[in-house]
Structure formats: C-alpha cells, structure tokens
C-alpha cells in the first residue's frame, strides 16, 4: 500500500483503484513498463560491455587481416603508383593496333622510369609484371641501370647554349610558378615530382643541377607547340629554336637499353595492369589470364591451379571418407560398451587428439619412409624384397594415411556424442519384430546416426581442405594441397596478390561449408573433449 491509499476504507480504495486508469507504477514512481525497459537496456549494455573488449580484439587481430587479404586479391596499385604519367598517357593507346605507343608515352615513361630507378622501385614493378609476362623483370632491371645515362643531355646542352640561365634551378622555379606552368603541364608536373624527390632525399632542389629529363620534357612540349608566347624572352627564344634542335629518339634510347621495349606485348601488359583494381589475380588462380580481349583460358601446359583445386577436393573427400569408415565402428563400439571400458578406450582416441600435430606427422614420416618402420617390418617378415621397398611417402598415399590418422579423432568424437544418445532398445525392438541384423542396423540404427556422420564429415572436410603442414612434409609433389601453393606464393615467389586470390577462393568454399554445418548441426553444438 502506498501512502495515498493509507487510511482509506476498503470501499474507497476499491473505487480509487477503479478510477486509477494510468500505467502501473514501480516503487520509485516511474511507470513500470519504462522501468522494466530501462532495466533490460542496462542488462543488454552490461552484456555488450563484457563482450566488447574481445569483439574489438578479434575484429582487429583477425577479421581486419582477413579483410585485408580479400582486398589484396584485387588491389593493383603498384603500376599506377610507380608509373603515374605513363599510365595516364597509355590509356589512350590502342592496344589492338599492334603499333608501338606514341612519343607522349615514351616521354612520360622516361620520366617515370627515372624516378622509379632512383627510388629502386622499378625492380619491384618488374617482378610484379613478370607474373603476367615472363622476361619483364629483367627488362626493367636492365633499363633501370641505363635510364640515368640516356643521351638526352643534347637538349640540356642546346638549351643552355641558347641561354645560360637555363642552368639555374631558381629560374626554373620562378618560371614554373607563373603562367608557364599552365602552358607546359608535363614540365610543371615533372618539376613538382623532382621537388618532392629532393625533399625525400633531404636535398635542396635549388642547389641541385636541373636534370636532363626536365630539359627533355621542355623540349618536347615546346616542340609540340606549347603556347608560351610572350611569357619570357628565353622561352620565346627556345621555342623559336627547338625546330632546328639536334634530337634524340627516346624510343631508340629504350630499345638500346633492351630491344624488348619494341615488343607491343610489353606495353599491352603494362596497359592491362594499369588500373588500381584488377581481376587478374583471380583469373590466374582459376587458370585463366587477362588479355586485352578479355579473360581467356591459359594454354594447357600452364594450367596448374585447376588440377590443384581438384586434387585438394578429391583428397579431402577421400580423407573424409576413410575417416567415416574408420570412425564408425569405433564410435559404435565406444557408445555400446560399458562406461568404464569405453572411457579407457577413449584415452586411445584422445591421446592422438592431444598430441602435437608435428609429433604425429614426424611419426608418420618415421613409419612410412623407404627405410621406415613399416617397410622394415615387411622386409624382415620377408613379405617385401629389400630392393623393392614400398613407396608410401612423398605421394598422395602418404598424405591420405597421415591426414586420416590426424583427423580421425575429429570424426570419432562427434559420432560418439550422437551415437551415445541412440537407445539400444530400438535395435532390440527391430530385431524382435523380425528384422535381420542388417535390416535392423540399416533401417533403424544408421538413420539415427546420420547427424553424427554429417557433423564429423563437415568438420573433417573443412579441416582437411586447408591443411598445410602434413602435406608439405609427407606429400612430396603429387600429394600437396592448394594451401602449399599459397604458402609457396607467400614465401618463395612473393606473388602475394595471387596468394590472396587463392586464399579468398578457399575461404569462400569453407564459408559455404560452414554455413551448411550451421544449418545441419548449429555452431552452438560444437563440443570439445
């Protein structure tokens, strides 16, 4: 009773209560509904507050890296970052015409290459493009060494002969600060890049000699009719004189460095990989290639990923299948034996489960190799001749045996947990109704054990499809998985984009399986030990 109702007669209180049509109130006077909602909100916030640190941790240390990998599988900044001017000019070049690009491209490429070579970025770009066209790597390396010594100093000499003030960097800075910058866009942009480069190197641009390539761009733009009339005397003089200049063909200079520059295929590759986003890595990872005409299959002798994906799927299926075959009888036995015996036998399942993966893999190496335990025993028993020892390692057989052993506990445990819930009386009932042993098993017991098989199979399959260590050690050449190829691209060939694309495809496959697992079993039902 609250204070307001105290002292009333029951009749009055009843009437007051009838008249009271407002919301029900909590002890502190707020409406009960609101108060409950607030309590619920506080509870939710507290739960989220407890989860938040871990969620943030997992997002930063795990989800973001995976997202980063996905991005990397399509990201292709290196060409546009290293050769910015070339990419811009090359966009207009018609790759189908099988003609070499025009002078503007050679001009831009000369400037880009000079900066790339000074920053030692040309080798990285070369190895990037080498994934798409072999030989490009050495092409860039050779050219990088030569680009500083091109014969473009003829322009420098001739311009300086016209007016010695061209040698003064300050005059360039003053000129390109004014209206000349609009008239000479390439020269102005190149000057900006030159300034930036000097800042990076810690040099003062005004104390450095004006480089040859700036004179070259100036000559090029003046020669192409840049409108610099009346801006300054020396520009007018230069413009009047350039027509008579002794010239140097940049195309020939590059061809001198390496004649492959005259191959339009090289330029097609550069143009094809200029965009910042590319489907090239994905095309590669399904044995296709990006061509100017679109995505085309690779020649037969270069197709490896299709084979690898198929092999990975096939071997994972075989491993899952053999795990089912081996786990089913064991799980059945464990769930039908008395508790004490079952627990003892369970140790034999759990011990391998808890033993280090490397230990089990090395054990299989010891067992399977030519001078290994199994071969020794067979030879000792006289079943196999000493000079005809079985080859059981460094092939598919080795991988399948070792991985079946390693993944078997992951099959037995879910099967066991399902089978131990099947009442044995069902089988007895079926038999007493006249079923044969086989019918009773196949029509009564087996259908009830299917969820266990499903759970175990998906678990084993997901684990098998991404396995790396065991195939690497016992797989040799024919028993390796797609994951070994990913590791190869990460650590040996350094083709990280391709590794990311292969990883992305694998991840999609696994996520689809995981989704199926969630539908069939539910992630909350994952149990350990």
């Amino acid at each position, binding site marked *: 009773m609250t204070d307001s109702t105290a002292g009333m007669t029951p009749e009055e209180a009843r009437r007051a209560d009838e008249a009271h049509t407002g919301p029900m109130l909590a002890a502190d006077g707020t409406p009960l509904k609101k108060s409950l909602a607030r309590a619920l909100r506080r509870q939710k916030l507290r*739960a*989220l507050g*407890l*989860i938040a*640190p*871990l*969620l943030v*941790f*997992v997002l930063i*240390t*795990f*989800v973001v*890296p*995976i*997202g*980063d*990998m996905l991005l990397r599988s399509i990201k292709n900044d290196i060409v546009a970052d290293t050769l910015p001017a070339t990419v811009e000019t090359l966009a207009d070049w018609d790759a189908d015409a099988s003609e070499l690009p025009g002078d503007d491209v050679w001009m831009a490429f000369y400037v880009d290459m000079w900066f790339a070579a000074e920053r030692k970025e040309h080798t990285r770009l070369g190895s990037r493009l080498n994934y798409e066209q072999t030989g490009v790597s050495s092409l860039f390396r050779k050219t990088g060494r030569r680009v500083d010594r091109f014969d473009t100093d003829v322009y420098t000499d001739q311009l300086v002969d016209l007016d010695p003030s061209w040698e003064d960097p300050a005059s360039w800075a003053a000129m390109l600060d004014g209206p000349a910058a609009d008239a000479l866009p390439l020269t102005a942009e190149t000057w900006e890049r030159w300034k930036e480069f000097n800042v990076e190197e810690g040099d003062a641009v005004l104390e450095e000699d004006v480089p040859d390539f700036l004179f070259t761009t100036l000559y090029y733009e003046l020669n192409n009719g840049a409108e610099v009339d009346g801006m300054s005397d020396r520009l007018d003089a230069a413009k009047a004189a350039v027509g008579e200049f002794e010239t140097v063909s940049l195309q020939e200079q590059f061809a001198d460095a390496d004649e492959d520059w005259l191959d339009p295929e090289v330029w097609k590759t550069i143009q094809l990989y200029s965009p910042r986003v590319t489907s090239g890595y994905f095309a590669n990872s399904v044995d296709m290639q990006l061509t100017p005409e679109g995505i085309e299959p690779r020649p037969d002798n270069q197709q490896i990923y299709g084979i690898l994906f198929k092999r990975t799927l096939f071997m994972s299926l075989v491993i899952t299948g053999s795990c089912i075959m081996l786990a089913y*009888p064991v799980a059945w036995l464990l769930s039908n034996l008395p*508790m004490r015996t079952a*627990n003892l036998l369970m*140790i034999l399942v759990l*011990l*391998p489960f*808890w*033993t*280090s993966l*490397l*230990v*089990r*893999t090395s*054990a299989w*190496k010891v*067992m399977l190799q030519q*001078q290994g*335990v199994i071969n*020794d025993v067979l030879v000792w*028993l*006289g*079943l196999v001749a000493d000079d005809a020892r079985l080859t059981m390692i460094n092939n598919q057989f080795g991988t399948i045996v070792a991985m079946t*052993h390693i993944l*078997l506990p992951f099959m037995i445990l879910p099967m066991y947990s399902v089978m131990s819930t099947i009442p044995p009386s069902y089988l007895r009932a079926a038999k007493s109704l006249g079923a044969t042993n086989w019918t009773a098993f196949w029509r009564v017991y087996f259908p009830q054990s299917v969820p266990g098989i499903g759970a175990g199979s998906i678990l084993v399959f*997901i*684990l098998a499809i*991404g396995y*790396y*260590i065991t195939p690497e*050690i016992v797989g040799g050449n024919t028993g390796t998985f797609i*994951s070994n190829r*990913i*590791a190869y691209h*990460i*650590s040996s060939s350094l083709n990280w984009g391709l590794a990311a694309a292969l*990883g992305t495809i*694998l991840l999609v496959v*696994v996520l689809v399986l995981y989704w199926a697992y969630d539908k069939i079993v539910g*992630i909350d039902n*994952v*149990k*350990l*030990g």
Partner: protein
Amino acid sequence: MSEELVIKTGRPDMMSFTLPVVAGLGLILGFLTGNVIGSPWIGLVLGTLIGAGLAYGLNEMVPKKSIGRWGVIIAFAVIGLLFGGLGGAVGGAIIGAIISWFAYWIGRGTYRDDVPIYSTPGQTLWWNFFLFICGAIFIFLITPILVVLPLSFNAEDFFTFTPEMLRLDPEGYSLKHYRDFFETDDWQLALKNSLVIAPIATIISVSLGTLAAIGLSQSHVPGRRAIMAVLISPMIVPLIISATGMFFFYSTLGNFLEGTLGMSKGLVGYIKVILAHAVLGIPFVIITVTATLVGFDRSLTRAAANMGADPVTTFFRVQMPLILPGVISGGLFAFITSFDEVVVVLFVGSAAQKTLPWQMFIGLREQISPTILAVATILVVISIALLTTVELLRRRSERLRGMSPG
C-alpha cells in the same frame, strides 16, 4: 547382460573346430616366423603342428589357464633366446602369448561370451571380426605415437630401428638426442620462445574470452548469433588463410609499431606472434566456458547480490570458483593451440621468434635428425599430462554441478 542370464554353452568340439582353427593360426605365425629365418615352408609345417598340439594339449591336459599360458610363453621365449638372442626371446614370448591365449579362447568357447545365446555361428564370427577391426583401428590410432618413443633413444642418427635396438642391446640405446635437445642453442631458443609465447597468448585469450563468455550467457544479448560467429571464426577459417591474412596485415602493424612507436624489432616480433596466437585460442575458451555457464545456477548470483555482495565480489567469490574448471580447460586448449601452432608463426614471426613446432618443421623438411623424436617424446609426455588434467577437471566440474561423472 546380467550374470544370471549367462548360459554356459559348453566347449566347442575339439576335433572338428578347436584343433583346425588353432592350427590355422599356428600356420600363419609359423609361416611368418619361418620367413624371417628364410625357410617359410618348414615354419609353416612346424607352426601348424605346434598349433594343433597346443590346442589339444592346453585344453585337454592343462585345466588351469594361467599355468598353461605362462608355460607356453616361457617355452617359446627360451626357444627364441636359443635362436635369436634377447630380441628373439621377446619375439618368442609374444608369439607364445598370442597362440596360448588363442588356444584357450577358442577351446573354451570364450569367444561366444559377448554375443547372445541365440546367435548363429555366422553372427558370432561377424561380431568377433568386428572387434578385431576395431582393435586394428585403435592400433592404427596409437601405433605412430608409440613408435616414436623408443626411436628417440636411438644411439644412431637414423629414423629407423637399428639391429642393436632390436636385439635390446644397451649399446643401441642412448640419451644423446635428449642431450642434443638440451644443449643446442637452436632448440633452446625455440623452447624458450614457446614457453614465452604460449602462456602470454593463453592469458590474453582466457581473460578476454571468459569475460565475453559471461556476457554471451546473459539472457538478452542483441545480435548474439552474429557475435558468436565472429568470435568462433578463427577456429573455422583454415589456418593457411588466417596465416595469409595475418602475414599481410601484421607486417603493416609491425612497421607501424617499429616506425611510429619506436619499439625494438624483437619486441614487435613477439607482440605480433602473441596477438596472432591469442586470437587463435579464443574460440576454444569461448566454447568451453559457455558450455560450463549453461549449467551455472543463476540464482546463486542473485542470492549473493541479495546478501549485499557487489558484482565484482560476486564474480570472484561465487561465479568464478564454480566455472573455474571450464576456464582452466579452455585455457589448456588455448595453450595447446599456441604451443602446437606452426603455420601462423611461420608466416608472422621471424627467425628470432622460432618456436618448438617451427624448429621441428624445419627439421623434418631439411636436416632430418632424431632430436625431433626426442622433442616429440617430451611433447607426448606433456600432452598426456594435459589430457589427464582436462579429464580430472571435467569430472570435478560435473561433480560440482551435481552430475554423475561419466
């Protein structure tokens, strides 16, 4: 089947069943033994005769099973000793044990004990065949681990059993690979790294994971399924993909820590590996702790609050002791995940963060040395210890929650 229902079916017929079956096993064992010496056919005939003789002799003349079995084992061991030294004696004892057990098992009808009385001979055969298959699978599961143990005491630098080892000659055994493990800098660095990285990663995943599991077990959590999926994902995504993603991202992170925050290269290396391992261990902590919390009686916390305890006190004095077994076994899973992990550390770490599995992996791929087997043996011993701990904790947890230990 309860005791009073067992009906003694009597012994199978000696001449038509016991004698031929045991002689058959003798034939196989004799053939194999003879093959070792080089005269399989003599072994075959002798084995058959001995098998038949034992079947008759043991079942008809030696009613006391233990005397019969030990007699045969000792006799076979002595014969083995005469022909093949100490190793031969062990082999002989094993063969003797097998054949004498088989002779009694067949001769006394013990093989029918586990099948119902109405089973046909075919069903009995199938049941015993099934047991035999299961036994073979258990052997398949455990043999690789058992083979590693003796080989780690090999005196030679081989991965195989030497003749000295087979003769049980003490010369063939030594502790040199263990000495190698404890004296080589490479292995010691790896051991040290493993012992630094795994515990710190475990502490991070257990503390964050337990808090989150408690949060997840509240009754109203918005987006529970989505959050759960994110938290479990490190376990679902194949390691090679996690490692690839981490390889890219953690090198950027490492550059940031080194460049902007000015940390030393070694420290950054450890931070990267520890963070990566911590996140890999989190799903195991979440799963085990949420499973423990399912059985947690919520009225206990309300009772504590009712008696005036603040939430922190309630957590440490009431909730924590009850869910501790789950937390510890989650922690053990997280520990073993980190301790056993090699792909991510290969991708994320540098040589200075080399862990034990990394060193073993390198060893298996390049210089094959039985030191790996010595390490493997030590790891097996550790995993047996962990397995025992988890099992004891599980029983304790069930006892605390009033369930009968299963």
